[in-house]
């Protein structure tokens, strides 16, 4: 498999890249390096927005306070974050991004939600200022010929390839699947990706269920799942809706051999809420603190998570790491470019091949994350902990399949 070869390459690169972090004595003489951007701290996307926000802050304060700033082309810089709340409103986001451009901000971080990321990215693109973002996965962002916009994960329709590969490798081989997704741009494109990838993997699709963007009850869908039971049930939706589905599945004793939830089980709060019933659930994890990657600044993912916990009490989530990696990627691109000129940094970003505690960062020519490197891993809850079961190289445990029925978990 190509993917494995690439990952082996990662492991090799790890050995070559020990790069110790050096503390600087001249922190006080450092110049400010302004990075702007918006985050949705209120409105529909507030929950993930806060994770993204905390990730940005963690990276910036570590680089500034612990490492005493970063060195770019012989010059010491302190990162100065300028973030504002866009309230999940594109009009507000575009106006306030413009203010930052006027103020002379040259580098931008992304908001969360494609309908905000795209209009703001159009503005920064026109101004020829880079934006590195971890919140917009819709294909539209990466098919417009933007040159200055980079995403931390692959475009939505490409995100499901790893899961399909996992399903194929399971023994006994699953035959059928059904997919449930909610009707928002993110989940719907992901649902599309599931269908493309699983059909290509030779699984038979029994049913596709589309839920409203705001789910309150899934009894009727589950009744249908019970009457036409697939081997694998794939749910792609935001965390809150995943929890609702899982709880109702337990309560109505709706069993499938494997429940795969795009988002949800990666959150500690989700696993706590489900208790022992979370056992065996699978999810995409773009990141987990046990990932083996080395990091030039933090050392590795564990140390990143430790530092995060000294700053925040909120449980760590993969968006935190993705957001922190945006800033690390900027710094490494600037160091590679030996410049903080936006054009030079943009070129360095396009050529990026950096290892961070988040993943190995490499972008496609369109700016989205490389589908193999940034396509994410798959986790399964085993004995209350989230273990990585795919890809093989990052595996911390063997996949359990078929998973026990709900009443056996009680």
């Amino acid at each position, binding site marked *: 498999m190509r993917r494995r070869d690439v990952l082996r390459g990662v492991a090799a690169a790890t050995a070559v890249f020990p790069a110790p972090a050096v503390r600087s004595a001249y922190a006080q003489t450092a110049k400010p390096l302004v990075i702007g951007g918006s985050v949705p701290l209120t409105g529909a996307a507030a929950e993930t927005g806060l994770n993204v926000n905390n990730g940005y802050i963690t990276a910036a304060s570590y680089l500034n306070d612990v490492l005493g700033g970063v060195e770019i082309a012989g010059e010491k810089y302190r990162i100065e974050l300028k973030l504002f709340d866009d309230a999940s409103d594109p009009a507000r986001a575009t106006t306030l991004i413009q203010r930052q451009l006027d103020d002379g901000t040259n580098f931008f971080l992304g908001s969360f939600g494609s309908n905000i990321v795209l209009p703001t990215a159009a503005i920064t693109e026109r101004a020829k200022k880079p934006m590195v973002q971890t919140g917009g996965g819709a294909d539209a962002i990466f098919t417009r010929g933007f040159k200055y916009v980079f995403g931390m994960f692959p475009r939505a329709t490409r995100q499901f390839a790893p899961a399909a590969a996992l399903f194929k490798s399971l023994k006994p081989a699953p035959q059928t699947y059904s997919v449930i997704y909610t009707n928002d741009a993110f989940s719907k494109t992901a649902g599309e990706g599931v269908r493309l990838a699983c059909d290509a993997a030779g699984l038979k699709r029994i049913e596709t269920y589309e839920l409203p963007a705001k789910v309150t009850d899934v009894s009727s869908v589950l009744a249908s799942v019970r009457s036409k039971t697939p081997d694998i049930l794939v749910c792609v939706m935001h965390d809150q809706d995943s929890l609702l589905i899982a*709880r109702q599945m337990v309560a109505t004793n709706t069993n499938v051999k494997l429940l795969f939830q795009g988002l949800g089980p990666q959150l500690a709060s989700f696993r706590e809420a489900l208790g022992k019933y979370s056992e065996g659930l699978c999810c995409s994890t773009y990141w987990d603190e046990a990932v083996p990657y080395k990091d030039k600044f933090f050392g590795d993912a564990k140390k990143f998570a430790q530092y995060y916990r000294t700053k925040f009490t909120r449980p760590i989530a993969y968006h935190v790491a993705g957001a922190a990696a945006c800033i690390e990627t900027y710094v490494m691109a600037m160091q590679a470019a030996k410049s903080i000129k936006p054009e030079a940094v943009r070129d360095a970003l396009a050529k990026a091949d950096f290892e961070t505690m988040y993943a190995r960062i490499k972008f496609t020519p369109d700016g989205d994350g490389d589908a193999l490197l940034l396509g994410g891993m798959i986790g399964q809850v085993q004995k209350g902990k989230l273990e990585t079961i795919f890809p093989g190289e990052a595996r911390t445990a063997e996949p359990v399949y078929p998973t026990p029925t709900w009443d056996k978990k009680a």
Partner: protein
Amino acid sequence: MSLVVQTLADGLVLGGIYALAAVGFSLIFGVLHVINLSHGILVLIGAYLALVTSQALGVDPLLTIPAVMAVLFGAGYAYQRLLIQRAVDRSPLGSMLLTFGVALMLQNIMIWVFSPDMKSITPSYAFASFSVAGITFDAVRVSALAASLVLLLCLALLLKFSPLGRVIRATAQQTLAAQLCGVNVKHVYALTFAVSAAFAGAAGIVIGVILPFSPADEALWTMNAFVVVVLGGVGSPAGALLGGLLLGIVNTLTAQYVGPSFPNVTMFLLLVLLLLVRPNGLLGNAFSASR
């Protein structure tokens, strides 16, 4: 066949909860003629209070209902006397916007205090279920329904038989006449608001037990209350129950037979249709003519 029955049963369970969540909204609209856009926030406050107390004391969340209701009763009284009373006699738009402003502020405060995360209350029986004649019920939902019905019944009895209920109804029917008979209208308004807030809080607990919640959900619960009240009619627990059950059934039936993403569409189409055919709701108007 069994699918139809299962769908209807699911709908009724859901509907009972909608009814409880809406009854306070209905009461305020009926008596004060105020559209309380902060209703959803009051519901969420109930849910968060139950979460905090049940975790701190380790008791079943449904047992926190009396305490939470008492807290919200007091808060509701103060809220009405201090803020809403000042806008109540002006245009209906004014009071509506006032409550919206309060909803925004409280939502922001909730985000500070509880973070924007989804939270959920998990009682010990969260995952139990039982079957009756081939129809599966999950235990939380049924207990939530039972709690809703009991509370609705309590409110109906309160309004019907207690002295407080009598003055509330009198004020709703003929504010001026009630005033002439010595009713302190401001006080009654505040009491009505307090009762409504208390029931919103209780609804929040019941909702918190079956659904995850986050501060951004407040609009959803305000909207649901809206729809229920328009369906069932203003001001009475019976109307709210009817509207709630109807909404619940429409929700599950549409989800099952039209498509899971269409309940809201049918819900609002039904709302608009009903407004045209019977603007006062199915049971007519329990109290005074709505403005």
